[in-house]
């Protein structure tokens, strides 16, 4: 298995926040940037400050983790550009985790134990949402019940046959922007709460990468670090 004592994780996949997490052995340092007008500008500076606090050089890092999308295009590309450059110079692997899965992981672990499913919705522009449905596997890791997708709020897909008897939690700001449409689509489900102020965090991405990507050897090299846009094309 690839050595992974020291990992740097980034998230800038949503408009509202960006974050950096640094794992050194079992200790995790975490910084969240909430200034949505400038957080992308400060991402590299935050990385440098965190590394300096821990007296680490780039050569000390064993790899990188990021939330690869879906999400805001510019934000995803800022994180991708930083990691391309860092992976290129250090020759260290990069682990990509779905933005929606990262959100679901925290929601599922923190929720009432009766909650079995999480419905994640992020606004995608053009009256669409990025949509994911997640549950926990035996290793307490969030797993998708269907592929993350781009959908109209009026017609978000649900996995067949497994949802009606499960207690569900709704997260993501898409539930604020399209609450009525999404609730109507999920009318048959036992939805106990809606938490729109729920954003992805780099430390959760780190956790998923360590527990899932690393054991499975799911990593990419610098040139393969590309956002998962989900929008096949934006030109009309």
């Amino acid at each position: 298995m690839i050595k992974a004592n020291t990992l740097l994780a980034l998230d800038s996949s949503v408009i509202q926040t960006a974050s950096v997490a640094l794992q050194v052995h079992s200790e995790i340092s975490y910084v969240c940037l909430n200034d949505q007008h400038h957080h992308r500008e400060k991402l590299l500076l935050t990385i440098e400050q965190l590394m300096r606090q821990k007296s680490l050089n780039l050569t000390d890092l064993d790899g990188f983790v990021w939330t690869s999308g879906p999400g805001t295009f510019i934000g995803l590309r800022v994180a991708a550009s930083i990691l391309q450059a860092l992976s290129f110079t250090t020759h260290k692997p990069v682990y990509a985790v779905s933005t929606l899965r990262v959100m679901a992981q925290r929601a599922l672990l923190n929720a009432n134990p009766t909650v079995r499913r999480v419905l994640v919705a992020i606004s995608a522009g053009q009256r669409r949402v990025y949509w994911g449905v997640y549950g926990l596997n035996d290793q307490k890791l969030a797993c998708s019940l269907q592929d993350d997708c781009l959908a109209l709020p009026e017609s978000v897909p649900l996995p067949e046959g497994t949802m009606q008897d499960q207690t569900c939690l709704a997260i993501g700001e898409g539930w604020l922007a399209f609450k009525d449409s999404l609730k109507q689509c999920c009318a048959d489900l036992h939805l106990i709460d809606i938490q729109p102020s729920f954003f992805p965090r780099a430390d959760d991405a780190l956790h998923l990468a360590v527990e899932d990507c690393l054991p499975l050897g799911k990593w990419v090299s610098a040139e393969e670090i590309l956002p998962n846009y989900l929008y096949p094309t934006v030109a009309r």
Partner: protein
Amino acid sequence: MSKDRGFTLIFGKLSMRVLGIETSCDDTGVAIFDATRGLLANCVRSQARTHAPYGGIVPELASRDHIQYLLPLIKQVMQQADSDPSEITAIAYTAGPGLVGSLMVGATFAKTLAWAWQIPAIPIHHMEAHLLTPFLDLKTQINFPFLALLVSGGHTMLVHAKSFGSYEVIGESVDDAVGEAFDKVAKLLGLPYPGGPPLERLAEQGNPNAFQLPRPMYHHTTLNFSFSGLKTSVMQLYKKQDQPVSDAVKADIASSFQCAAIDSLLRKCEVAIKKTAVKRLVIAGGVSANKYLRTRLEQLAKAYSSTLHLTDLAFCTDNGAMIAYTAYLQLTRSYYKKRSRDLTIKVRTNWIISDSHDF
């Protein structure tokens, strides 16, 4: 002097090697410029095929292409220049003006790479880089002042370059850029995108006097340009023709349009020479590859006993070489500032050229 200032001293001699990154619009350009050996490598990936189906640049697609191809291009130029990362002493990147998504890719990558390699990152003004391109070798001396006609798909401006870093825009388009007008007329005539080169080829087969087209602002006292009215006139002219329009008529329209557009450019250059008494003229930008424009400018320069500096055809469109070269000029003239160590990632989409050394 140290690498921290964009230099290294090797056996007592100054060494400087700049990696230039250009991602302001729809071409990804990377190059390496060396202080003693000049341009070592220059690679450009044109996105023309990506945008051709849409007849113009789609900003989001441009950004997606940049992030996919920037790193492979950097690897390519490093290999072509036979250059090791330890030999690169500074990284220059286009910080504006341009499309925000495109600029952010290059700026973020450049800043991060410079931090990782512990060298300065130099933000460069895209239009300043264009106007210095005719001097992009170590033999040609840059003599100020000069007048620069910058013509592309995004810009049409006349700049009075008084000294290095002191630029005054003395005229610019009040509406469409001249390259944009070329693209739109080309699309009307059924030519592929980008429209400049095919329109020029078609124009060579036509008669420039076949149709009388307007030269907006030709007699205006300012040095500003306008191409929107000319474009509309061409569209109206096209509709009046027997449909389908024959190839011969299309060639006449292309030729008449090209002549009108270039008449407007020439007129303002002539007035600028008279007004400023500056006897050096530089032309740069994508449209500066147009042979008819180059010929007409040569005639103008001769008539006014002026020196004309034409951009090498390889560097008319956006490229990393001009970015690396401009940073080299800044570094050799001690324009190094603390900002190059600042890790905040900033771009300026509307950066004006008169502030080009103030980022």
